[in-house]
């Protein structure tokens, strides 16, 4: 019988069959052998100019075909930037600047989100746009740019003031800063440990020395953490190789609050639900985590969110010893992305230990067969690629 927590997975399983196939913008598999690329560091200005003109004309099919060639040469920033400004100078206009900035953005996406190259390309585009007053047409560009590099959220705020869309990247940025660096799917090494009120009282009774030595994997509710900080404010300035559990707890509650605010405004914001769930995992709150993963699964519009909600939910079940529900959740994840290695490697040992040796072997044999399936967990910090494509289409739409 499915328990209350498992019901989300059961429901999700039932939903899977009826869902329309999601459009997958990322390659479904990972190439096995590296092609022998010879990278060029020179910029063919005429070709770049032609590329910009193609983009300006809305011929995105041709652009998509030609653009990857340029992504390999953009590390030569100055020449690339010079090529864009030369094209704008041929007939200066707000539209031309937006086109040039958008091409830089497109190449940034091809390059890879969150890489130095991508960040540099976003910066080049941003500099071009700042040469003119802010315009509504520019907003989708900045939102998409924030999807590529989260730190761009600050630029958006400066240029436009507060508006809703970049809040998720900003919250993710906070998550990035506060998430423990030793994270694994199952949290081995330093699994978070919850301290109840009595344990916190004991720490408080020990005074400042006790507060200053709370291990980094201890978690407590916000009020308790704030009480301890009030008793020993120096804990916030503590310099040590391991962060203090009091400080980590406050940081993670801030992340949780950021996501909670987002899902309160838009309960269907599945990615925020997903990340709220993982934040609860880090806070050693498994029941809240499972509830958030359940909600993320139910409101998921993309393969990325649905798969990760089930995978991470399964990991929580396994951590708390609910193996049957973990197995169910991992199986459900594999219905979303068949052969995905993270769910396969999570599930197979459980099956093996349950005596289902043949199924475990079959599962792993499939998972490692070339080409292997692209695994959404590899994009956890790079965010949902399908969401990026939506923003990216909005940029193209704004130019029409």
């Amino acid at each position, binding site marked *: 019988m499915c328990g209350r927590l498992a019901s989300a997975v059961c429901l999700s399983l039932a939903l899977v069959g009826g869902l329309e196939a999601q459009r997958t913008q990322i390659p479904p598999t*990972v*190439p*096995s*052998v*590296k092609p022998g690329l010879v990278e060029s560091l020179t910029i063919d200005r005429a070709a770049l100019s032609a590329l910009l003109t193609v983009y300006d004309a809305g011929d995105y099919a041709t652009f998509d075909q030609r653009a990857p060639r340029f992504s390999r040469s953009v590390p030569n920033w100055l020449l690339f930037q010079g090529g864009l400004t030369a094209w704008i100078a041929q007939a200066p206009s707000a539209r031309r600047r937006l086109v040039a900035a958008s091409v830089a953005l497109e190449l940034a996406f091809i390059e890879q989100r*969150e*890489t*130095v190259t991508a*960040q540099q390309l976003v910066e080049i585009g941003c500099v071009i746009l700042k040469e003119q007053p802010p315009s509504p047409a520019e907003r989708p560009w900045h939102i998409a740019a924030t999807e590529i*590099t*989260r*730190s761009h959220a600050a630029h958006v705020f400066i240029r436009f003031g507060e508006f809703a869309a970049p809040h998720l990247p900003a919250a993710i940025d906070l998550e*990035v800063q506060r*998430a*423990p*660096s*030793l*994270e*694994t*799917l*199952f949290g*081995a*090494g330093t699994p978070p440990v919850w301290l109840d009120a009595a344990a916190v009282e004991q720490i408080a009774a020990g005074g400042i020395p006790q507060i200053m030595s709370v291990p980094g994997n201890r978690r407590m509710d916000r009020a308790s953490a704030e009480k301890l900080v009030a008793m020993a404010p120096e804990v916030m300035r503590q310099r040590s190789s391991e962060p203090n559990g009091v400080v980590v707890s406050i940081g993670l509650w801030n992340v949780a609050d950021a996501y909670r605010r987002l899902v309160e405004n838009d309960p269907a914001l599945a990615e925020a639900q997903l990340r709220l769930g993982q934040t609860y995992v880090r806070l050693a709150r498994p029941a809240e985590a499972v509830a958030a993963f359940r909600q993320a699964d139910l409101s998921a519009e993309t393969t990325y969110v649905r798969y990760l909600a089930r995978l991470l939910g399964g990991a929580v079940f396994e951590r708390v010893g609910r193996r049957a529900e973990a197995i169910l959740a991992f199986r459900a994840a594999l219905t979303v992305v068949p052969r995905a*290695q*993270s769910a396969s*490697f*999570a599930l*197979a*040992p459980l099956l*093996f*230990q*349950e*005596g289902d*040796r*043949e199924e*475990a*072997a*079959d599962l*792993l*044999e499939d*998972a*490692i*067969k*070339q080409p*292997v399936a692209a*695994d959404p*967990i*590899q*994009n*956890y*910090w*790079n965010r949902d690629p399908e969401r990026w494509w939506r923003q990216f289409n909005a940029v193209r739409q704004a130019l029409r």
Partner: protein
Amino acid sequence: MNRHVRLLAALLVAAGVDVTAQQKPPVFRSGATLVTASVSVKKGNRPVNGLTPSDFILTDNGVPQTVERVTFEEVPIDVTVVIDLSGSTAGIVDEIRRDTRRIIGFLRPIDKVRVVAIDTYVHEVIPQQLVEKKDLALPVKMVSGGSSSIRDAIVAALITRPDPERRRLVVAITDGADTKSVVEAATVMELARRSDTVLHIVFVRPPGIGGFGGPGLGGFGAGPGMPMGPGPGAGSAALFAGPAAGSFIRRETYVSEWDLLLDATVLTGGAFYGARHGNVGAAEADAVEVFRRLFDEFRQSYVVQFTPENVATDGWHDLVVKVKGVDDKGIRARKGYFAGR
């Protein structure tokens, strides 16, 4: 023990030289659970031949058992070679490929080989096949990220479909810097208890990178039980704004995790070769020479069988095997078995 072990025992007895049969007829016990253990016996570097059941002293969870049968046979072997083609071994990829070819060269036509490559993902680059042609195509390099899923690859090698006609050997050639695995070290340990595959790990490392090679060689001054890496943003991951590139990734391997992995090899009857943690100056392991030795040893092992008596019928059983007149150091056998499933 399970159906697989019983079948293995039956086939080995049928195909092999049943030294017991030369002395007394086999005794079949109705409903008995036969346990099979592979035991290598050496004096110095030379295998000891001609042993009979009475030469073996075996305890199961500390309870002395009667060895019923001993066979000595060159059985077909399935070898899985796990090669590390992640970013940290980029400087020695050619050597790893060359060594892998030489390793395959030792196998006999009756043996099967499979090659599994590690990077961010685990790739079966050569599916399991009979060793008919020695010059199998190996990949130049992988593309899926440059991180290392070592434990995942080992699990993929340990969890195999039962085949009672064959014995299984896994040799993982890696620098040990696991940054990406889903499977935790404790799980590898648990699987090692239940798997009938023998696991060997050979640590290799690129020249001049003393700090990134073996377990504990992080070069970041970590003490026992501490993570060995510098935290997020280290190395190539510094290109990324997140705590790590893309997904959950750890640039650290805990010494305790390494110890578990090393214990897992011993549990299966295997071993590890190369630098232990903290021993940066240790001699490099020659993966080919290691394989040649252990393959010889493995194919010349005794298969010892007994029916457990006066012990629990499920759970983990500690197994201790001794041989009269042979130093314990010359005996290699798995350290136990998991009964019940």
